[in-house]
């Protein structure tokens, strides 16, 4: 029998599951992690005993609520943790769990695959001790580890101040926060940000708290390079006052988040360029219906909106699904959710202005900077292929291997696109989209195959 399936047990996936269960549908919930919660509300291993407040701060109540939901629902779901969906085709999902490959036929699927950091490489970013902001946060939430003893946080996006704050609260020495967006951009963005005053207040609070605790917060600050012999020892950054050096033993950096869209691609969803996300995203209507009748999209995997929006989008997509298979749904609820999502969307517009994408990066990144770690492709290698006349990103990939390795371009694709666009003097929306190919993540030889 074909199942109703949810991929991803983060805020969107869990709320979607809850909504389906409340209406009497028993979905299959597939998740790569051992315990539900997603990345943002990632849970510590069962034998760790830190309090939710310590782990999640202001978000403790939401994290708790979500974890309780998945714990309560467990018996009413076919919940399959530690399960990777590595491929999708022809109404079925291909899964990998504990060395076993299996197929799962679906009647409907909600794709809630979340996001990863958007990385714009700088010299030295592959040194041990350099992490993405999200990874730094996971080390803390999941394992109670800091990435170093003297940490610099750099880049842009809401995670920047949040993670720095969480590290300082946890007792790590935060050397500095280097925010690439200028203060003027953040001031201009204020009207949009006021649409979500509570979220804005938290952001201001984090920054104020850091400053009040003597932590240097620099705006309009560009991370120039990270130096060290065996691992991070120092970094250089610059602002309008010139170049500066900081000693540190770890760096966490990113420029916002990017959606994990590979499964939507393999499922055949139509994609469109999204200027706000600066990325190709699967198209969806306000309810989360994709261009494919069986496929629904929710959460950051279909465009970065944050955890609160993901919860609502998960519920909204589940309601759409229920309606499409003939269930009666609460008549007011869809409109309420869509209205709230719209407000968050307005806020997100403001955030993008506040944490503006550093458009100059692609022009300035030096030729010898590694862009694709998996295949060891440098910025100059990409530029050389473009100078040979190639401008379509899949062709550039074919010629220099950028995005061809283990991560399949999930880490380097955004940066490569920026370099190709700059070098070929085309808008980044005009150089094509990296095509997803199975497996989404590496697949071992010698796996056992269920008939």
């Amino acid at each position, binding site marked *: 029998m074909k199942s109703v399936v949810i991929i991803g047990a983060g805020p969107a996936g869990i709320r979607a599951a809850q909504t389906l269960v409340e209406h009497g549908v028993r979905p299959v919930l597939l998740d790569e992690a051992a315990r539900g919660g997603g990345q943002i509300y990632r849970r510590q291993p069962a034998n760790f005993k830190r309090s939710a407040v310590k782990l999640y701060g202001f978000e403790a109540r939401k994290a708790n609520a979500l974890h309780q939901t998945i714990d309560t629902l467990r018996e009413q779901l076919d919940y399959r943790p530690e399960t990777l969906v590595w491929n999708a085709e022809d109404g079925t999902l291909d899964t990998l769990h504990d060395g076993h490959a299996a197929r799962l036929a679906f009647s409907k699927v909600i794709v809630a695959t979340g996001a990863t950091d958007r990385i714009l490489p700088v010299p030295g970013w592959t040194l041990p001790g350099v992490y993405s902001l999200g990874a730094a946060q996971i080390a803390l939430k999941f394992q109670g580890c800091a990435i170093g003893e003297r940490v610099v946080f750099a880049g842009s996006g809401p995670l920047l101040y949040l993670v720095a704050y969480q590290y300082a609260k946890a007792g790590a020495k935060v050397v500095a926060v280097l925010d690439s967006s200028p203060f003027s951009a953040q001031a201009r963005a204020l009207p949009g940000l006021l649409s979500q005053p509570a979220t804005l207040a938290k952001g201001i609070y984090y920054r104020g708290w850091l400053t009040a605790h003597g932590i240097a917060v620099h705006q309009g600050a560009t991370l120039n390079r990270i130096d060290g012999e065996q691992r991070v020892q120092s970094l250089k950054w610059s602002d309008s006052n010139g170049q500066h050096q900081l000693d540190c033993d770890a760096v966490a950096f990113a420029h916002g988040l990017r959606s994990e869209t590979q499964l939507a691609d393999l499922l055949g969803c139509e994609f469109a360029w999204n200027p706000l996300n600066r990325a190709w995203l699967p198209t969806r209507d306000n309810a989360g219906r994709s261009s494919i009748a069986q496929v629904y999209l929710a959460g950051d995997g279909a465009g970065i909106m944050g955890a609160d929006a993901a919860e609502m989008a998960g519920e909204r997509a589940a309601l759409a699904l229920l309606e499409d298979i003939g269930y009666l749904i609460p008549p007011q609820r869809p409109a309420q959710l869509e209205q709230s999502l719209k407000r968050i969307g307005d806020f997100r517009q403001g955030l993008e202005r506040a944490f503006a994408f550093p458009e100059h990066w692609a022009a300035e990144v030096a030729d010898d900077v590694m862009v694709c770690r998996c295949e060891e492709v440098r910025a100059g290698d990409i530029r050389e292929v473009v100078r040979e006349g190639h401008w379509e990103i899949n062709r550039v990939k074919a010629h220099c291997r950028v995005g061809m390795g283990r991560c399949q371009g999930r880490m380097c694709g955004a940066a490569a696109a920026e370099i190709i666009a700059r070098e070929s003097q085309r808008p980044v929306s005009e150089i094509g989209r990296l095509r997803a*190919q*199975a497996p989404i993540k590496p697949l*071992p030889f010698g796996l056992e195959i269920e008939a």
Partner: protein
Amino acid sequence: MIEVDAVIIGGGIVGASAALFLGKTGRRVALLERDFCGSHSSGVNYGGVRRQGRPLSQLPLSQKAHAIWAQLPQLIGIDGEYQRSGHLKLARSLNDLLALQDYADSSQGFGLDLQVLDRAQLRARFPWVGDVAVGASYCPDDGHANPRLVSPAFAQAARRHGAQVHEQCAVTSVEHDGQRFRVRTQTGLELHAPWLLNCAGAWAGNLAAQFGEPVPMHSGHPAMLVTEPLPLVMNASTGVEGGGIYARQVARGNCVLGGGQGFALDNARARPGQSAVLEILRQAVELYPFLEGAQAIRTWSGTEGYLPDRQPVIGHSRTQPGLLHAFGFAGAGFQIGPAVGQALTEIICSGASKTSLDAFSITRFHSISVA
């Protein structure tokens, strides 16, 4: 309006090498490619540069190609990761080994220098091959190359020799006005030429049909995958008698494996498909035990043209003077492609190919009606 000596439809390795060789003789050539040159089956195939196992009728042309491959860097400006690693065709049963022995006997005189190895010889020389193989046939000078680099480089080299290369330039109409072909493209070009080369791969059937000689061609979609880089183990490209899977290891350490069929996403694109991928993963550890626990990081497929006898069509149209066909290579066009481009060039420049193309005539699909 563009006046040239030859319009070539299809920027795969066959069309691009024809453009290159014609360009070298000073002929004015326009190469039209709907997508990007070398981006379909010429660029996404396994990368085998292999003579062993081909039908005997292909071996003279394949030997010509072998000589061209030896000059690859001089010809296209890059080495294309081409290496004469040797090609090892494995037998999983004694019957299969007998078949390999038969092939070695019958192909003698073509210059392949095949060596049939029994189990002990195979173990001694290629200890990384799994016990499932009972013997093999080894062709020392066959090898492999990177099709992603080689096929587009033929088009680049053609451009350097004066060929006009038009990418993202689909052909919308072809006519013959009694004297020359008139070819129009989606981009608004109109080209005139006395020669038209149909090198459109899996999509070549339409043009043949337009000139009254339809062919029973169907598309195939080979399933391919690649591992993360591994320690260098495989010192030969491999295949298996009777089909199954084929594998090679590149200098970077990645193993490239293929086998089975994928499926079409649309007219131009394909995916390898879950079943074929899992089957490769399963069979690979039997044939190449060192792969146990390694990771496959990427899969892909392409669109190849197959005729029922798995032989290509190469040579003159039966119905339209000036029209030359070269398509339907059944997943085995990469090695032989440059020699086909050369043969087409010989037809145009000196009236006939130096190598007989009789076995590949399109007339074999058309019974001659006697009135």
